[in-house]
């Protein structure tokens, strides 16, 4: 099939790529754009490891064609760090041991990021609901919830977005 040229903005940078229509967005991100922080877990739309933000909303990048993102704005886990400073969520996951193997973490961070944007002061239930599309095989979720609470608190104090 003929390739198509698409344009996306990823973590603030404009990029162009020539893609086959069947190329999945996650492969564009990892292979063509070199942002390997986004993981492929199940590849069957279930685990959320591939979660990224497209135009301000979380999506599973294994369940979208790259051509669908044409003209759109992507944010991946690499986009969380600002001016060399970790995002409070990243700090939270470190401080509260929100990860063990780390495979689910990029997706967890993106879902938590979207949650805190919508709801800066979430209850435990809100957090569990917000990350309900992300599976973790290691932590039992307890410390992930604490990590998000850590970030929410820190952001409320520091006014970070």
């Amino acid at each position: 099939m003929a390739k198509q040229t698409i344009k996306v903005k990823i973590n603030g940078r404009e990029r162009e790529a020539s893609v086959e229509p069947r190329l999945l967005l996650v492969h564009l991100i990892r292979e063509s754009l070199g942002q390997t922080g986004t993981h492929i877990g199940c590849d069957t739309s279930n685990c959320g490891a591939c979660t990224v933000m497209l135009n301000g909303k979380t999506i599973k990048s294994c369940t979208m064609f790259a051509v669908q993102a044409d003209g759109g704005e992507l944010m991946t886990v690499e986009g969380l760090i600002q001016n060399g400073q970790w995002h409070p969520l990243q700090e939270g996951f470190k401080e509260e041991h929100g990860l063990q193997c780390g495979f689910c973490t990029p997706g967890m961070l993106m879902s938590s990021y979207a949650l805190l944007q919508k709801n800066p002061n979430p209850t435990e239930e809100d957090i569990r609901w917000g990350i309900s599309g992300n599976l973790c095989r290691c932590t039992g979720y307890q410390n992930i919830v604490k990590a998000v609470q850590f970030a929410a608190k820190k952001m409320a104090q520091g006014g970070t977005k």
Partner: protein
Amino acid sequence: MIPPAFEYLRPKTVPEAVQMLQQHGDEAKILSGGQSLIPMMKLRLARPAFIIDINRIAGLSYIKEEGGFLKIGGLTREAELEASHIVKSKYPLLMDTAEVIADPQVRNMATVGGNLAHGDPANDHPATMMALGAQIVATGSKGERVIPIEQFFVTLFTTALKQDEILTEIRIPIPPAKSGGAYEKLERKVGDFATAAVAVQLTLDASGAVASAGIALTNAGPTPIKAKKAEDFLRGKKPDAATIAQAAQLASEAAQPSADLRGPAAYKVGLAKELAKRAIATAVARAGK
């Protein structure tokens, strides 16, 4: 898993999309949220040669009350239903349903139109729309036609949509005063399809008796199932505990589930009964408010 190759088309208007459907016939498929189609393509359960991406068609995504109906554009996302003030305040059955479909990321993409057009009885909107007495607006080469929901689901993965038709709108009659609804679903985990689920929409009369009832079952057969006997039984009766229990029994008798990893058939029938009981009770309570 890389899906099979296809040619990608991106119409800007409904007529353009219909024309593409006509031109490519059975080889073409509409791409809406992609949350059912893309997984099926990865598994080679679908191999369209042409994908017609309707996501860039303007004006297909809305939720508004107009002309006696709640009108939902075919491309409206589940997340938009969840966030809708009208849905939250007046359509509790719809809100209950949107909230238990898949997970947040899937709901950001998945569309109400796609959920119905897919024709999967395991999906949650089909039974809900049946309980609500919805109508489906299909737009094709001959213009628009309205399909009553009871005629929409033909069999597993097959709907009344013609090959060149796009589901453009869902119409739900605006419920009269003293109406309420509820959706009760048992799922093994967030994002799973229903082991069993029951949708109920009721209107009470001035005396507190049931004036009208819509009850339908999810994942209990090859199409969503309307529990007509239970609806008829409830009509005209005061919904006390014994009446609700009897209606729930009748609703579960309409179920014809098959055994799968979610459980044996008899278990699912029992579950349908319990979920029907809860959904009716909640609908009654909400209608009384």
